[in-house]
């Protein structure tokens, strides 16, 4: 709060703090002539980068950090994002010079430790997924999806069936990344419904799978937080059609050591290292999206793979059927360091991680299911979906209002308006690292908000009340499309209608 009791004043942009002639950097100046850049190629006008002292630089970014909320700040039950604690030892380990300052094109005999780490992580992920081979290369889950679909195409092309098998089946609960990946891989999308228990509707599915089907993309447990009880029948349907099965590993945190995708019949799995294996989410990334596959798909994996010859580790580029490369080098190595470290901390007890995640979620569900609508009354896995439908109908309070009000309790909102099949959805994932007291604080807040919806709904509609800014106008942002600072030409803030508007787009997942 500012001295006058108002909310914090606006934070300047770093460009607005800039003063000509100031700088933070000091650099070596060698006593060597600087060659001329050919005139046609030389920079005519310098970029307007900020000119600030180091002290002001540090203050600026520190101030901005205080206007942000991370897991370190508090409870962050953002469904489908698995916001678990990020162990600090991993940050120290990733900074070891042998990892941090290692060039990706270093000779293999100068990178044996890095190659061994990658090889060990491949082995671990294959075991956790119950599959045969792993590529660490994809940069995030959605790139893992796309890579998996490229493998589908390569596999069927190898069998002469690529032109016949053009369709990928996806349930209506899927993350938006699944259909987007299908389009990017050049496949056609076939949607399948969800049944009354929240499983894939097997009757609908049967009519949609055939010779034209390349495969299925399924998240299990689903984005409803429910394990598909028909998974064995689903496998029979796809196997019977000669099609493949892709497991979206977004929810793998529910089933480590409990049920493995390979045992469910899946051919390809992506693992979100930033979810299940605790790579810090970084305000939106980096992530890691390794894929695990059956031996039938292994020949098509991206290059290079890391292989072990005796006691030496090396990159294997000699994969004639490989789809190629989906990103540079062998993948986001720093992410591998953290995830490998995280898994080594648990060892075979990784199962306890998933057990605690599921216990925490079911506890929240048990405490909240009478205050909010529960679309599917089952035990949940590591997350669950409530609905604010009744609050909306009876009190005019939406899921978004509930989410915004949670901020005033010092809690990051859950994912809202997703999955799309649940109106006014609130998707809640506590993760295993939260203690019972935090879970109870969250439940108390959610129950208090449900009560507020009855007695003082405006408090919710106008929330948040305690954040550095009030509710932001997303429609105005899209209309203005001011996506960079324009210095002296920067438009006035008031140049578009400032009528607050609610956009019910998914927020999270």
């Amino acid at each position: 709060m500012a001295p006058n009791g108002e909310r914090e004043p606006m934070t300047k942009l770093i460009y607005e703090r800039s003063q000509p002639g100031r700088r933070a950097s000091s650099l070596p100046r060698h006593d060597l002539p600087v060659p001329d850049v050919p005139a046609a190629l030389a920079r005519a006008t310098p970029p307007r980068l900020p000119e600030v002292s180091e002290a002001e630089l540090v203050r600026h970014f520190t101030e901005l950090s205080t206007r942000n909320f991370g897991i370190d700040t508090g409870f962050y039950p953002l469904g489908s994002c698995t916001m678990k604690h990020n162990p600090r030892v991993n940050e120290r380990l990733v900074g070891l010079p042998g990892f941090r300052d290692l060039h990706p094109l270093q000779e293999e005999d100068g990178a044996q430790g890095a190659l061994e780490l990658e090889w060990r992580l491949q082995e671990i992920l294959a075991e956790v997924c119950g599959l045969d081979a792993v590529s660490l290369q994809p940069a995030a889950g959605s790139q893992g999806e796309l890579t998996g679909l490229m493998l589908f195409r390569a596999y069927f092309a190898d069998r002469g069936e690529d032109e016949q098998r053009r369709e990928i089946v996806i349930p209506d609960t899927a993350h938006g990344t699944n259909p987007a990946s299908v389009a990017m891989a050049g496949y056609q999308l076939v949607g399948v419904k969800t049944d009354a228990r929240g499983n894939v509707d097997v009757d609908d599915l049967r009519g949609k799978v055939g010779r034209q089907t390349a495969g299925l993309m399924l998240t299990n447990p689903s984005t409803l937080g429910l394990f598909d009880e028909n998974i064995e029948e689903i496998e029979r349907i796809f196997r019977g059609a000669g099609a493949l099965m892709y497991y979206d590993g977004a929810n793998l945190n529910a089933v480590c050591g409990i049920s493995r995708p390979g045992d469910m019949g899946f051919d390809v799995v992506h693992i979100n290292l930033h979810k299940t294996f605790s790579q810090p989410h970084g305000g939106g990334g980096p992530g890691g999206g390794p894929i695990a596959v059956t031996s039938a798909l292994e020949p098509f994996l991206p290059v290079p793979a890391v292989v072990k010859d005796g006691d030496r580790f090396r990159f294997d580029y000699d994969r004639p059927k490989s789809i190629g490369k989906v990103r540079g080098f062998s993948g986001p190595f720093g992410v591998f360091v953290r995830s490998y470290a995280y898994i080594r901390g648990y060892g075979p007890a990784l199962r306890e991680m998933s057990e605690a995640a599921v216990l925490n979620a079911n506890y929240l569900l048990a405490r909240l299911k009478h205050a909010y609508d529960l679309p599917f009354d089952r035990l949940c896995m590591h997350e669950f979906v409530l609905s604010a439908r009744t609050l909306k109908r009876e009190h005019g309070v939406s899921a978004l209002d509930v989410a915004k009000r949670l901020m005033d309790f010092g809690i990051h909102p859950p994912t809202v308006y997703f999955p799309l099949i649940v109106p006014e959805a609130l998707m809640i994932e506590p993760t295993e690292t939260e203690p019972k007291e935090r879970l109870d604080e969250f439940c108390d807040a959610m129950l208090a908000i449900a009560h507020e919806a009855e007695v003082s709904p405006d408090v919710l509609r106008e929330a948040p009340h305690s954040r550095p800014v009030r509710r932001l106008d997303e429609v105005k942002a899209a209309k203005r499309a001011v996506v960079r600072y324009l210095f002296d030409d920067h438009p006035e803030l008031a140049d578009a209608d400032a009528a607050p508007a609610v956009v019910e787009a998914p927020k999270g997942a």
Partner: protein
Amino acid sequence: MSFLSLTDADRDEMLAAIGVASVEELFREIPEGVRFRGRLDLEPALSEPELTAHMEQLAGRNAHTGIELSFLGAGVYDHYVPAVVDAVLQRGEFLTAYTPYQPEMSQGVLQTIFEYQTAICELTGMDISNASGYDGATVAADACFIAKHATGRSKVVLAEAVNPQVRQVVKTYAPGFGLDVVEVPHRGGTTDPDELAAAARDAACVLFQQPNFFGCLEPAPDLAAAATEAGALAVAHVDPVSLGVLEAPGNYGCALAIGEGQSAGNYQSFGGPHYGFLAARAEHTRRMPGRIVGETTDAAGKRGYVLTLQTREQHIRREKATSNITTNQTLLALAGLVHLTWLGPQGLREVGETCMALAQHAKEQLAAAGFELAFPDKATFKEFAVRVGRNAGEVVAAARAHGVHPGYAVGRDYEGMEDALLVAVTEKRTAADVARLVEVLAEVALPA
């Protein structure tokens, strides 16, 4: 070591509240046929000190640039990363947050992304930047996808002097995107504008790199003009630390500017995580992939930032989205912003000049020692190719035995260049380092 928080008493109380007798019962809806009843075959758990020792042992078996004098580049560079980068990135509010879906909780990250987008637009001379892509290779595939939709054409032209890893990723994406990839060979280390113009006919875009993979300065304005005249989008793949001395792609007619951000703010880290940047002219706004942050006001009229133009994105448009990207490289892009802020315009120029001066010095010293430059008549930035008279891979091995990594063996990617070494010189090297490189190469290689 585990990071669980529940006590036995907590567990009992919670199970009672749920109404089940055991944790096992929570999994009763999983069909028995897909239950894993074994024990994961993983090595025993390690305590934090044991884990640290194990990881130090692994890290200790890597020849990093702190113990080996390195001239290795070829896409990832040993530039200096200032201490302020580490300090800002270790703020838990940045490190442990996720995508700013809820803007009132995320003004810090949103504002840094807006500032990052501004920095990228300033560097490249473009109108709009996204919040980052995975790396310098995947943003090239993104650019080709934009070009396909902008032009309705499916041919993409890649200059052969573009980083081979970038070209390989574009080729991997091409079938799904419905793209046909054509490559234009280099002529003496750079791309010939006339040859490129011929290839650009009916093309969606032309992608070239400035400075190119060999470190040479392309006739970039001529290449951009060749593309544009053919109705193809000109796409420049650029190095951020070069843009204090080299012209911005937006100022010589490019429609898109992309690149690998690692040079600005990221450690080498065995290849990642780094960030790719993607910037465009305003007319391509609706075709941009990934997150974009925009400026708006809150209910009280105060300035704030939100994710915007989201109708391009997968969580709304699903199969009609411009990309499937969700998680990007925000933290690495923040590192880039902090590094560029630390440098300022003057510092950026100095880094570029220092790299150029040292690289020029290295070229002269190697020439004086009898080595032949692969492309002697071409201007370069921080990297150049030199002939070493024998298989360059063998030279690398021999030089490393003397504690010097002399560069990248170009023959891995280009025929007829088996004896060429790509040498990168950053501002962290010194004239004495260059002297040592020349000394070692003179011993292990064969000057002409």
